[in-house]
């Protein structure tokens, strides 16, 4: 087979995927980009004017306007970044710790590994609703346990107070996503070469030093993948916030904000602008991911 033939058949094999991707990803994306330069509304999608980049940032009558000056958008941005960084940081630390634990030769670790996956397997909408009931201030089991244990004197409004609502949301996300990190890390731990550890044992290296000097560098590629995947997920988080607290300012993420503009306010132009900026933020994180993996790939 000539090189040209091989290239040709490669394209033929790739074609179905390219066609499907362009239909389900590229086309909607292009339309979202397009609508973000218009003032289209859902009342009549065919009736719109071009506003250029005015939805992003504009200046008229001595005043800046547009997305980048919108306090609601800035609030949603701050909430999203805060949520993403805090929840992913906790998930990473906990995930590694749990993976080390279930990697140890303990009795019942098979059961432990299976049970670990339960939170990850439940659909987020279901677990969000479930946690909303458990965190209910009057009937919730969480308040009931805290009251019985004498830890709090009066029931806490987990989803009612601003700070607690964000904390609850992070806690539920940690509950749900830690197993994902733990599973990836566990898989990496099981491929580690035993001889390193045997040598360390002979030399009498302290366990903490062993972890930071041997284990952590060896699992770093997998950990990077896990963290970036979690970051991507957390940046576009919608279901937890929407189900647990609705359109509350304290927990409004960029995705909830985009939905409110697009659907509740029927403002396709502005809503598309919110979605487009979120898309570019995710592109940025993905670029970091690719950049972070490059050196690792060269030196396996």
């Amino acid at each position, binding site marked *: 087979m000539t090189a040209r033939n091989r290239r040709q058949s490669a394209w033929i094999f790739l074609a179905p995927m390219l066609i499907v991707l362009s239909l389900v990803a590229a*086309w909607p994306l292009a*339309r979202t980009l397009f609508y973000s330069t218009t003032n289209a*509304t*859902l*009342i*009549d*999608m*065919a009736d719109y004017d071009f506003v250029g980049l005015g939805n992003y940032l504009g200046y008229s009558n001595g005043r800046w306007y547009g997305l980048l000056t919108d306090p609601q958008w800035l609030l949603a941005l701050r909430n999203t970044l805060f949520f993403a960084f805090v929840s992913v940081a906790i998930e990473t630390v906990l995930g590694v710790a749990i993976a080390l634990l279930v990697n140890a030769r303990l009795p019942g670790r098979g059961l432990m590994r299976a049970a670990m996956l339960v939170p990850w397997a439940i659909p987020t909408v279901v677990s969000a609703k479930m946690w909303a009931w458990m965190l*209910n*201030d*009057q*009937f919730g089991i969480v308040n009931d346990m805290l009251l019985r244990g004498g830890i709090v004197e009066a*029931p*806490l*409004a*987990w*989803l*009612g*107070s*601003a700070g607690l*609502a964000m904390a609850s949301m992070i806690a539920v996300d940690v509950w749900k996503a830690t197993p994902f990190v733990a599973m990836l890390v566990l898989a990496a731990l099981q491929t580690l070469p035993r001889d390193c550890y045997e040598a360390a044992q002979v030399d009498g290296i302290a366990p903490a030093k062993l972890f930071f000097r041997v284990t952590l560098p060896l699992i770093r590629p997998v950990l990077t993948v896990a963290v970036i995947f979690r970051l991507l997920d957390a940046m576009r988080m919608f279901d937890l916030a929407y189900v647990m*607290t*609705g*359109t*509350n*300012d304290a927990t409004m993420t960029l995705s909830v904000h985009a*939905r*409110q503009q697009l*659907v*509740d*306010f*029927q*403002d396709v132009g502005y809503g598309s602008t919110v979605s487009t900026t979120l898309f570019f933020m995710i592109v940025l994180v993905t670029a970091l991911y690719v950049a972070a993996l490059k050196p690792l790939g060269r030196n396996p």
Partner: protein
Amino acid sequence: MPTMPRPRLILGLLIVMTLVVPATRAAAAGVRVSIACGALGVELALCREAAEEWAQQTGNSVSIVNTPNSSSDRFSLYVQLLASRSPEIDVLQIDVVWPGMLGSHLLDLGPAFADRVPGMFPALTDNNTVDGRLVAIPWYVDAGVLYYRRDLLEKHGIAPPQSWDEMTRAAGTIQTRERAAGQSGLWGFVFQGKPYEGLTCDALEWIASWGGGSFVDADGDITVNNPLAATALRRAASWIGTIAPRGVLNYDEESARGVFQTGNAVFMRNWPYAWALAQGEDSPVRGRVGVIALPKGGPDGRHAGTLGGWQLAVSRYSRHPQAATDLVRHLTSARIQKMRAIRGAYNPTIMALYHDPEILAANPFFEALLPSFVEAIPRPARQTGAHYNQVSAAIWRTVHAVLSGSTDAPEGLEQLQQSLDRIRHRARW
């Protein structure tokens, strides 16, 4: 043609579909009409029963489309269906604040209902008229009312409150005494404090009851930034953590009803639907509940309940507009409205039914509360039209901030005035 815009593509598909299925259109009898009404419980059962009765009488068939229970989720479903010109749902049950936002997708029912309109609440038919087109027929009317625990008020020798001051005092007294007597989980008052449409309704009642207007006046001018509105909001903020649990800041109608119906609250602000449920066989507070008009504000205040209620509309993209209109006529007829009032406590939109002895026997509070329904205060949906949801979101955001204590009432109202000015400037109402 990959660059063909989507609306035209969908229109093209629609045209193809109408060409393919002309047979069903030609046969007047025997069409299938789909209706979205209610999501669960007695509401869904009553709608199904009445719709199937129509199907039997006319030889057509109906299918009930399941919709989400939360009204904002229902709104998003409708918006997505209607914006894509879907013929999926023929008859839609829509909220009283939606005609302005969905009107362009709905049929003008004025001609078909000319005989019925004079007997209905004028406030509702006015509300449903968008640019001279009657886009929806009022099905049942709602107004915010105050529920109270009759047994607890009698036990402590307190009369049903007429003003917010009296309500606050009564709630505080009963809460303190009953907690001392062992009911540690009792609260004085629950309402809808979650940042969503329900909070806009509650806030309108507080502000209007003090004489602070209704955010935007009939001419579309923004009136919210006034001292009476500030008084009303300050009073409401003082309830949080004292007579109302802090969790009320995440309560919708059903969360509030959950607390009240399990016997854990003295007073509750809710819609009339909660009456039939509180009096249900399995209700712990059955026979111990009273309903009155919401309290007045200060000495010059008034009883103010927010106008609510649901309408039936026909989609412009329906393939059977005639049959769908006929179904709406059946469902909004006096006979069906009476059945729904007796079995589900749904307030009729036909005024004459408020003197019907059978309806009053089932709902003794209907007659006493008739003024609340007639004088119910509309949200500023007519003036703000397609931008109502934006206006309402600005309102609930501010009120929620004042209730949670992150801003004080005058400052919050100042910011609200500015937000509403901005929306008005863009919307040009």
